[in-house]
């Protein structure tokens, strides 16, 4: 699915003032592309994801998905939240099943799909665990499985690995890349970690804060699957960082 922002601004009303989170942002993402948005906090990265998901509306400008104006959330574009946002009243299976139930899939089909997905994220033994019993990395895996259950064309990830330890993060980077290489999904990945962006993205959009704008664009041509210890990652990261500081 192609995604596009055309001259998008977004203002929020805060007590006593207006805050411009995004200022005249235009970008386009090709179907199947892995794009990373990087920038310091408050640069509107999350706002862009929410706009693409249809969970937020632009103040001016247009958000387009495959050429059609986005008017609301849709299972074809699924957002994965920073803190996973899993439902604590459902167990792992219930969470992954949630979207399938909304789609009114029959029980056998649901169960089959859930067990496939849990196997894919290596959580098949935890189907009946409650959410609070999982570690941070496991929660993000469940969130990924819950999103993939509805077979979205677009995955929108909001700093999904920000709160995880380095080892778990490396593992999830690997899994996410593997998944993206297998399934032809469009991925928009938000992070403030430049190296993570270089590791994962085909393209990096660098943003500046208050108001949020796109400062620079980098295409990363490294072969996949990539690993954090690839010698080119550090120099490219420095390049990206330099473009961030130029005007920031």
């Amino acid at each position, binding site marked *: 699915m192609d995604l596009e922002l055309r001259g998008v601004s977004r203002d929020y009303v805060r007590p006593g003032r207006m805050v411009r989170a995004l200022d005249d942002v235009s970008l386009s993402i090709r179907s199947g592309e892995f794009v990373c948005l990087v920038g310091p906090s408050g640069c509107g990265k999350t706002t862009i994801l929410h706009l693409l*998901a*249809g*969970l937020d509306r632009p103040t001016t400008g247009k958000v387009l998905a495959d050429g059609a104006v986005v008017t*609301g*959330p*849709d*299972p074809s*574009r*699924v*957002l994965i*939240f920073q*803190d996973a*946002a899993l*439902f*604590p*009243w*459902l*167990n792992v299976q219930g969470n992954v099943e*949630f*979207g399938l*139930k*909304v*789609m009114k899939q029959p029980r056998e089909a649901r169960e089959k799909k859930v067990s496939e997905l849990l196997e894919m994220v290596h959580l098949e033994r935890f189907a009946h665990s*409650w*959410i*609070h*019993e999982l570690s941070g990395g496991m929660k993000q895996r469940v969130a990924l499985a*819950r*999103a993939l259950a*509805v077979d979205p064309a677009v995955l929108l990830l909001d700093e999904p690995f920000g709160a995880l330890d380095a080892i778990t993060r490396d593992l999830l980077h690997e899994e996410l890349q593997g998944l993206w290489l297998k399934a032809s999904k469009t991925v928009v990945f938000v992070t403030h970690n430049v190296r993570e962006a270089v590791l994962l993205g085909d393209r990096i959009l660098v943003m500046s804060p208050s108001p949020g704008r796109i400062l620079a664009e980098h295409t990363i041509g490294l072969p996949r699957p990539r690993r954090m210890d690839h010698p080119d990652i550090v120099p490219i990261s420095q390049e990206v960082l330099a473009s961030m500081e130029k005007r920031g």
Partner: protein
Amino acid sequence: MRRFYERLKALPVPVQRTFFLTGLIAVWYLLGVLEIWPSYIFPTLPGVISSIASGIERGTLPIAVWGSIRRLATGYMIALGTGVITGFAMAHVKLFKNTFGLLVLGLQTLPSICWLPLSILWFGLSEKAILFVVVMGAFLSIAQAAEDGIRNTPRVYIQAARNLGSRGARLYRTVILPSAMPTMVTGMKLGWSFAWRSLMAGELIYTLPGLGYMLTMGRELNDMNQVVAVILVIVFLGLTTDKLGFSVLERSVRARWGTESGK
């Protein structure tokens, strides 16, 4: 002495409690045997037991228990229904919250037994009058909890659910209501204990088959054994409903959310 205390403390809690209760009952029994006080001042263990036994035998105790429980259950159900609907309305209709919500907040400080005079003037000396007091006891805390629970549904849950295609009544049933459960359970439990207290207070004043009335009868007959027997029955019923009803709900919430309060 100190070592004795340390050893007692090291015993399992149920054993500690058994010791305590056995001791308490023994002291009670002995004080009764010594006949220091007249029987209308001091209840004796055999007296209380035979009072319970004869109450059961004559049928007065089961009738009283049934009367009170039925009243409590009816009143509580009415309070639960109206409370949840009111809470729902306060959470969603701003005008209702701004106006009626003020009453709910303000009236919470009023002990519900204070509604009894009003209720008697409205409904006369009838079953309805006491039911009204019970409903008023439970209604406010249930309404308040329902509102809090619904209103405080974390936004990300709603966003995540909408993103997966859930909307309207389905979103309400599968996300907003379950997310409100921990707060609701706390409110329901509070409402239950208010209803129970209001009922007993109401029944003390009333001439209707019920535990409160049995207490009053005990006093009028100078029958201390009956008074204490009924008190024990009331405590027993309170503990039972708590253990069988709300504790089960609370445990289920705790298992899922993994916290004491559920938040």
